[in-house]
């Protein structure tokens, strides 16, 4: 986890009184997968990725409702109608009430590939956490395409199998 600095020798030639430098490194206790067959190496828990279709970014609630195949009840209330759908979907997802957000990698499995699930996550997500009970923020959701949540090991067995 630490090693000598390759530049140490040349420093020594220039200044004998300068203390030697070292580089310390850390990248995890081991490279072993630690908890889940679905997880990534070194990660404690199961990463689950949610992806929004590329053509969804920046679209209006009315457009998204049409995309989802939902009839619009009142044109002026599209946002509220979409929020209700997002909240309902968030309640259905077998996730804990809150999950940490981790940097996304393409290796992270997409368990719920549908658009409404992705919206249910992205609209209730900050840079660090997803909270089921949070009020949906559609503008924030439509600014980024994907996010990975880390599901703690105790909740991992509630997750559906990864679709092949």
């Amino acid at each position: 986890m630490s090693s000598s600095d390759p530049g140490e020798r040349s420093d020594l030639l220039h200044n004998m009184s300068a203390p030697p430098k070292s580089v310390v490194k850390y990248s995890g206790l081991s490279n072993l997968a630690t908890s889940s067959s679905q997880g990534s190496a070194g990660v404690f828990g199961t990463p689950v990725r949610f992806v929004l279709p590329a053509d969804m970014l920046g679209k209006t609630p009315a457009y998204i409702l049409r995309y989802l195949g939902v009839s619009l009840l009142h044109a002026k209330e599209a946002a509220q109608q979409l929020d209700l759908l997002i909240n309902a979907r968030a309640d259905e997802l077998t996730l804990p009430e809150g999950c940490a957000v981790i940097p996304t990698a393409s290796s992270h499995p997409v368990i719920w590939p549908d658009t409404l699930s992705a919206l249910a996550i992205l609209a209730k997500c900050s840079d660090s956490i997803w909270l089921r009970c949070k009020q949906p923020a559609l503008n924030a959701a439509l600014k980024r395409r994907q996010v990975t949540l880390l599901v703690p090991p105790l909740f991992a067995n509630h997750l559906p199998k990864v679709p092949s």
Partner: protein
Amino acid sequence: MMIHGGPCPFKRLGLQGLQGIAPVLVAALATEEPLLLIGPHGTAKSLLLTQVATALGLEFRHYNASLLNFDDLVGFPMPGKDGRLDYVKTPAAIWGAGAVIFDEISRCRPDIQNKLFPIIHERKVQGLALAGLRYRWAAMNPPSTDDNDNGYLGSEPLDTALADRFAFVVEMPAWTALNEDEQLAIIQANDCPITTEAAHYLAELVARTRTTLPSISQSLASGVASYVRTLVALLAQAGIALSPRRAGMLYRSVLAVNAAALALNPGMDAAEAALLAVKNALPQRAQGIAVPEVKLLAAHREAWRFANIAPGDPLKAILCAADPVERLRLAVAASELPKAAFSQVVADALAQLQTGSREAAIVHLFETGAVGRLNAAVAGQAAELYRDMATPPQFSETMHASNNRFKTWGKVKDLLSQLDPAQPRANLRANALAAAFLRKELASPNDADLAFAAFASTDAQLGFA
């Protein structure tokens, strides 16, 4: 706090600027509990006590404790007729006094201080009851301690046990706290005899407080008891420890100050009177230990708020738990706790936990799913730390080998080598330690040791070891 009702009884005795602590002083007179005044020289501590004793018509003795010999107190010992020890009573001896004032109590010799202890505590000297002694008062300058630059050299912190015998520990208002009129009145003061009206007014207030106290006690007893219980727990969490005796004293003081406040100003708020009582009933001031105003105020507000919560409410048990890990565990278990209260308890607990322990507590929040009950701000902060544990923080840092940070890293490596990478929890613990090092929270190898051990013990306490 100002008394908006009748005039301040102490102003009538020629004492300025005491309206803010008047209810406390009247409460001390009504309850006859020991009273200690603390203040810089020239703040009228002795004058206050002698004027009050005179106004109440008490036979009193005024001793300078720094010059006191035991013989001065009791007189000269002499064998009695039946083998008993009698004392030749001098006019200055304590026998027969209704009030006693020990001035400069923090400057007296330890052996004399020990002899004053039973007088203050139980109105006894050499095991003999001091019949007729009602009031035990003392005064001192702020003690000199490492923490108190304004303390007086020669004024020693009072012994903990002795300090704990004074039910009322009152800080005298400083010159700068007085308004212009009061300062001018002090400058132009001359010795005037106490008028009959002023003496009568004070006696009347004391009597009215005594009369009101039983009914105040009846109506506020359970609320004040609950308030004091929560307050003591919250102060302990803030590092201000109080004895069980002090808890009882606080209870009685809060009731008495409420009764006195009612006598002085019938419109006064009970919470305000309670805070005034608490501010003037902490023994720490006599020991030179600073009591941060902010911590005291925060604890008072919380305790007062929860004084009216139903006895079975889990929040009461949570707030009264001294250990922040236990508070967090109880809060997680109490799923009915509202989001705001839960978030507050968790945020407070996390702020009090040391590195290592805090990380294990955060793991607990995520593994139980309780993080979802937090408000977004607290949950977000917890998630940032959790991410650094659940996914290995990756870093590379160049440092001098002579640097203390390099030595700390050496200790971190030693500790990590004790862990089995095949154990999932070992990875969490390793990442927690590495992340704390990265955040520069480990300033020494000892810090690394402490954080490593704290993670394991908290993890075990929360049932996940």
